[in-house]
């Protein structure tokens, strides 16, 4: 009998402790979904740190298949490693750090005149979380800018959109391209990662 009790205790303990070590724990950084690109990059980085990091950054752009914003030749995709992007963009007009409540890690906001670039931290690295247009001097890669008529959005992105919190949202490969329309005119454009939406 005694033996049965000990065996069952040990089995329950083993069952609870032994499984699921890959499950996210609550302690530490705010839990954000790890994108497949980040997971792949992490694997490469662990294998051979320096060369892998360079290669991963270079491959980031090539592999990216969501809507990307291009500014002065710099391609900015959501969930991309932010370091090379920020380096290419040069000195921002302003920079702001927003530490998350309670958890380690800092969201960063870089403002470059016509747009704002936001990042989120995961595993000691920053990733692009959003790009927000600030004025009508820039356009999306597909040619849509603030002030353009609604028809131009449909022409560029089609009718496969959904409505979310009053925005028109085009989702592609784990990212969102969001438009706010006022009086049938584009009033706001934002590229947004879905990794931080939880």
């Amino acid at each position, binding site marked *: 009998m005694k033996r049965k009790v000990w065996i069952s205790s040990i089995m329950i*303990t083993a069952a*609870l402790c032994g499984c699921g070590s890959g499950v996210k724990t*609550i*302690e530490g950084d705010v839990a954000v979904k790890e994108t497949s690109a980040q997971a792949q990059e992490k694997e490469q980085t662990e294998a051979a740190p320096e060369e892998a990091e360079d290669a991963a950054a270079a491959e980031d752009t090539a592999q990216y298949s969501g809507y990307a914003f291009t500014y002065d030749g710099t391609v900015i995709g959501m969930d991309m490693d932010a370091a090379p992007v920020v380096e290419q963009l040069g000195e921002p007009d302003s920079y702001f750090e927003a530490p998350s409540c309670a958890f380690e890690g800092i969201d960063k906001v870089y403002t470059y005149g016509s747009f704002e670039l936001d990042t989120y931290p995961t595993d000691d690295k920053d990733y692009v979380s959003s790009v927000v247009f600030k004025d009508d001097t820039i356009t999306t890669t597909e040619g849509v800018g603030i002030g353009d008529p609604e028809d131009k959005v449909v022409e560029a992105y089609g009718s496969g959109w959904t409505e979310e919190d009053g925005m028109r949202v085009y989702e592609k490969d784990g990212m969102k391209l969001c438009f706010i329309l006022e009086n049938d005119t584009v009033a706001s454009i934002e590229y947004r990662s879905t990794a931080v939406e939880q």
Partner: protein
Amino acid sequence: MKRKRIIRAVCSVLVVVSTLFMLQKLLLPKYVSDVVEGRLIAEYYAEEKDHDVIFIGDCEVYENFSPKILWEDYGINSYIRGSAQQLIWQSYYLLEDTLRYEKPKVVVFNVLALKYNEPQSEAYNRMSLEGMRWSMAKVKAIQASMTDEEHFLDYVFPILRYHSRWSSLKAEDVEYLFADRKVSHNGYYMRVDVKPAKDVPEGKMLADYRFGENAYRYLDKMTKLCRDNGIELVLVKAPSLYPYWYDEWEQQIEDYARQNGLLYINFLELAEETGLDYNSDTYDGGLHLNLSGAEKITAYLGQVLRDEYHLADRRPEERLSRIWADKAAAYEQDRKRQEEEMEKQ
């Protein structure tokens, strides 16, 4: 013979249950060396529950108001039931929970939480909910807060959620298995360092500035709960510069306060009156106030509470004064320790 079997069976069950209980205690995050905000909600239960004022809300209450100042300057006995990203339904149920123990004269609620209309994050839910004692208020708070990926049973038996922590256990998990360590001063989380507010971004344009129906529903419930219990509800917007507080949100709160006969204080508009200086009174660039800033705006709030609600000065109460003398000593010790740490850096 039969009796012996029964005793054995009972003992067996006890051994299994005890093992699981100990294991669960061991695996639960202790929130001691980091993310200490996870301990805030539970700390309340060890207090003597005779408060005149209870604060509820997110980091904008537990980092921006100092109950010690309310006591020292006005003799108001207060406590902050705040937690990181506390959502409005969590604030409501924490208020219900508080009313199981005491009935304050005034409840102060920070309105930033109205921006959220639905559950947000498990990590923050856990910090607000795990520390609550079990009651119907806690059950309802969990049900209102769970994201799609969460399960109620994981809150009842946290071992189901935390079993994977076995590989990352630290010495503190054993040290604080049954021991407690206070991390707040009546719910206030103290920081003395300074980082001036600079280049705070403007808010992004929103398609819809209206607070959500669910958020309003809980604000209505909170208003009613206070009214039914003869409690004055005060709405505040702490002077945090980020996240951005939109004019459209301000208008809605002003309208709500007026329609419901509530006092609303927006500290963002009172920098001159409170003497708040964003160059020296914030520790993270304008998101939260440091000790200096928290003491300034609390002194202002204390005056309003005293004048509007005629809260009695309880400093002559000997027993309460003794309790507060100990609290003040711990507060000053914490301030000194942090200042010394800053000097070393």
